[in-house]
């Protein structure tokens, strides 16, 4: 049993590393709901710009920002917003995108082509641009960020699922289902989606990384979660002025973003290796 586990770890290094990183981030984010080292909004001018542990534990594990707020605590709470935005936007993109993708695959004629062009049109709008437009309409905020990133994700998922669904639809078991009197909707729900689920899951992990990066970009520009709620992107923006005096202010959120992106990408890579049919089909 133990040997089997070690072996699995060795064969799936990327997946294991990705799991460790992402689970730690999620745990820290959840922990922040109940406990943080210090209040992330409480200012303490006396400690401002102090480096990690510069004044012992009172200056915090990762130091203080320009208002003397505790950076470690801000990162933990910020992770919550990052993950919320990422999960919600990827959920929107995955659900609508998959629905569009499998529909386009089921109707290869005019409908499919029209959906394809619609996708291209949406894809042409970068999330930053749609966030600015949405922000002008409904003001910056978490919802704006979710909608902007989610919209951007729709064509990504639509493309991946359309291609995968077309491959599945070429198999004879789809013909057999038709011989069993199943309509296109039933075939899609019963045969197509279960057979492309693994590809969707891989894409979810990869797009979560993308979403975290984009969310950081949006809040860097002031288009994300508004203050005083801490966010990784704005922490990075705030650090610019103090880059030379207090580099830890930039390093902490920068590394947090990089680590989260790396974690989800490793997870996606590992999952796709795990479900690669060439590795799965063994007899």
């Amino acid at each position: 049993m133990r040997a089997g586990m070690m072996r699995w770890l060795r064969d799936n290094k990327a997946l294991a590393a990705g799991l460790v990183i992402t689970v730690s981030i999620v745990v820290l984010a959840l922990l922040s709901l109940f406990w943080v080292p210090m209040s992330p909004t409480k200012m303490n001018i006396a400690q401002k710009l102090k480096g990690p542990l510069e004044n012992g534990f009172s200056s915090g594990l990762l130091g203080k920002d320009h208002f003397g707020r505790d950076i470690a605590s801000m990162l933990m709470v910020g992770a919550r917003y990052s993950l919320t935005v990422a999960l919600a936007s990827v959920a929107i993109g995955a659900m609508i995108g998959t629905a569009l993708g499998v529909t386009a695959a089921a109707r290869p004629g005019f409908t499919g082509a029209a959906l394809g062009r619609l996708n291209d049109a949406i894809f042409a709008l970068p999330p930053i641009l749609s966030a600015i437009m949405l922000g002008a309409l409904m003001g910056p905020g978490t919802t704006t960020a979710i909608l902007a990133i989610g919209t951007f994700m729709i064509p990504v998922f639509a493309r991946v699922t359309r291609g995968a669904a077309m491959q599945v639809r070429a198999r004879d078991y789809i013909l057999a289902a038709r011989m069993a009197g199943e309509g296109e909707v039933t075939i899609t729900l019963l045969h197509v989606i279960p057979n492309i689920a693994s590809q969707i899951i891989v894409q979810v992990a990869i797009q979560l990384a993308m979403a975290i990066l984009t969310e950081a970009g949006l809040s860097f520009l002031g288009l994300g979660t508004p203050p005083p709620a801490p966010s990784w992107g704005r922490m990075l923006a705030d650090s610019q002025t103090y880059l030379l005096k207090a580099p830890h202010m930039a390093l902490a959120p920068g590394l947090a973003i990089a680590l989260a992106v790396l974690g989800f990408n490793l997870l996606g890579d590992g999952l796709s290796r795990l479900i690669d049919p060439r590795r799965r089909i063994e007899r």
Partner: protein
Amino acid sequence: MSGNRAPLVEVIGLSRRYALPGGRNLQALDNVSLSVAPGEILGIVGESGCGKSTLARIVMALDRPTSGNVLLEGDDLFALSPRELARRRRNFQMIFQDPYGSLDPRMSVARIIAEPLRLLPERLSRAEKAKRVAAMLEDVGLRAEDGARFPHEFSGGQRQRIAIARALITRPKLVVADEATSALDLTVQAQILRLLRDLRARHGLTMLFISHNLGVIEEIADRVGVMQAGRLLEIGPTAAVMENPREEYTRRLLAAEPTLDFLEQPA
């Protein structure tokens, strides 16, 4: 074999043209007429691109002809409303070539075999379904417990047995087998042919058996039709066509088939 009983299937003047890119057309089927009597196995033989698979798909109402009719028990398949067609599907089912592609890898074998049961007019209870699936599994030489397993746990030949069980579960009047043994190893092919002959003896199967392999056709078919370039060149009792082919093409096909006759030549 045919003779006085009314045919189960009549194919009349069937043509199918596909539009190719560049404005050209592909005449996949060209005025094909044939009939299959109840209880008969009609073999269709031809090389790739001869239209035999198109014929199978149209007889199964998976594709529509450009012109011509398919009559099943006297009713024109393509004049039926979609609802009525769906209702009739229980009467005709299909076995596919690739036993790896014709079974949904995410479904248990029992679910795969039970899939066409939705075509039956009566709603079956879960227990009744399970009973029929188990009986069907044993009918095709598998064990009733195999229903709980998944396709990847089976060999190619066993998978083809599962596909046969699925095709027969609604007790269809007509089964179309499109190259049903072509992807199988020789010894497995012989087993599947034996199974089909056996099922026919027990249940009185009517089949349209499509293959590129003359030897296989001879093993199973009562009559054989030879197709080339969308046309049905000749059709007749299997032995007659094999022994005394009328068409030059049939002779070429027979001569090209590798047999052990070469042993007669000194090495």
